[in-house]
């Protein structure tokens, strides 16, 4: 379970998160929607401590993420994160991209991790690209590679930041299909997305972000078809 309480975060004078409260249960899929610059990416980075926080508390399975004594690398092992910009490791083949962390972080043996990589790449439809470098893959393939890389760590949670935003429209479908698969497998996900129909179909709940505040959170279908707050209505009106 991820429990976020009163989280505040500023970059210099700019307060980006102004007191966020949010709870995500095991097995739940939560989609974060909201305008650009509203703090969604920052919140994801605060959840796995890639960014620090100024106030409040983030708890994952009862562990205080931002406590100084928390081993952040251990914590991140069970929380995959996938970024908008893919961030595949350019110097490694698809297989080595996926095998790297299980081998070096979890200390699994080499043969085992290469097989694991093949399995996860096949899972996201890249079984025929094992020896390709990221520069030889399309954006959609690189993004699926990034997802496979995160999944190979067998995370309990996945943080997904607009994983389809940098893709050409015809490539969005393949990545969303991959995420659907994860949702069906019961992985707990927090996904920032602009794909409202996707959120409606896959998410259990949706939270609407605006200027560093969560304005509305609720069951996906009802929030999207019947938003209560004016701001949410406005945002959905523009985007749909």
């Amino acid at each position, binding site marked *: 379970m991820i429990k976020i309480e009163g989280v505040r975060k500023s970059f210099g004078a700019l307060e980006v998160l102004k007191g966020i409260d949010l709870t995500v249960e095991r097995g739940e899929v939560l989609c974060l929607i909201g305008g650009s610059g509203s703090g969604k990416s920052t919140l994801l980075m605060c959840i796995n401590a*890639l960014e620090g926080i100024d106030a409040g508390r983030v708890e994952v399975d009862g562990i205080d993420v931002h406590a100084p004594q928390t081993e952040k*690398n251990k914590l991140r*092992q069970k929380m*995959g994160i996938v970024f908008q910009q893919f961030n595949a490791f350019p110097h490694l083949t698809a297989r080595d991209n996926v095998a*790297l962390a299980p081998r070096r*972080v979890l200390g699994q043996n080499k043969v085992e991790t290469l097989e694991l990589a093949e399995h996860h790449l096949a899972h996201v439809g890249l079984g025929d690209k094992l020896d390709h470098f990221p520069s030889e893959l399309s954006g959609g393939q690189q993004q699926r590679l990034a997802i496979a890389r995160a999944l190979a760590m067998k995370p309990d949670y996945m943080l997904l930041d607009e994983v389809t935003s940098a893709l050409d429209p015809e490539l969005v479908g393949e990545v969303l299909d991959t995420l659907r698969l994860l949702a069906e497998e019961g992985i707990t996900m927090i996904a920032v997305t602009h794909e409202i129909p996707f959120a409606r179909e896959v998410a259990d709940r949706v939270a609407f972000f605006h200027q560093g505040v969560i304005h509305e959170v609720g069951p996906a279908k009802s929030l999207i078809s019947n938003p209560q707050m004016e701001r949410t209505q406005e945002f959905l009106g523009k985007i749909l």
Partner: protein
Amino acid sequence: MFDYRFQWRVVWKHWPELLEAALLTLQITVLSVVFGLMIGMVLSVWRKSDNKILYWFTATWVALARNTPALLQIYLAFFGLGALGIHFSPYTAVLAAITFNNAGYLAEILRGGMDSISPSQRGAALGLGMKPLQMYVYVIFPQVLKAVFLPITNQIVWAMLGTSLGMIIGLQELTGMTTFLQSQTFRPFEFYLAAAVIYLIVCETILIFARLVAWRAFRW
């Protein structure tokens, strides 16, 4: 006017001296690059430091190394430090000066290499649960290596050509030895041409070898 008659036999006769001098040139080059790389790594890290003293120390080093003549740096190492009571042999003075010079350039090359890596690669590595050291070893450094490989190769060539300044303080590296031999034999054209060919062959060998390594190692 153009009735100069080449006499190569005299060059051939002094071939062992030339070869020995070339080896000295190569030795200073290799040592100055190795030491320069070690210092350059430290400088490139200090350059990013929050510590003002380290930052300014590094910035000064880099500026002096890059923006003053290498010849001056050799004079300073030899006569300058000599006046302060620190007496270097010509060999040590040249090695120290070229190392100083290399470290300044290499620090900047390394810094540029680090800066060329997208910051999001850090997030991707840490996000997989890597410790900072693992992130550097498995994700950042391999990419930096590619970015700096050819610039460093160029720096090696530059360092080698720079060692020729050593003759000014009496070091008999390749240029110094050549100058000495031609003054003994009165065959300047032959000797300087021979030296030029040796420099050229060694530099081209380094460059071709480096390209080969790069082609094998950086196929991505």
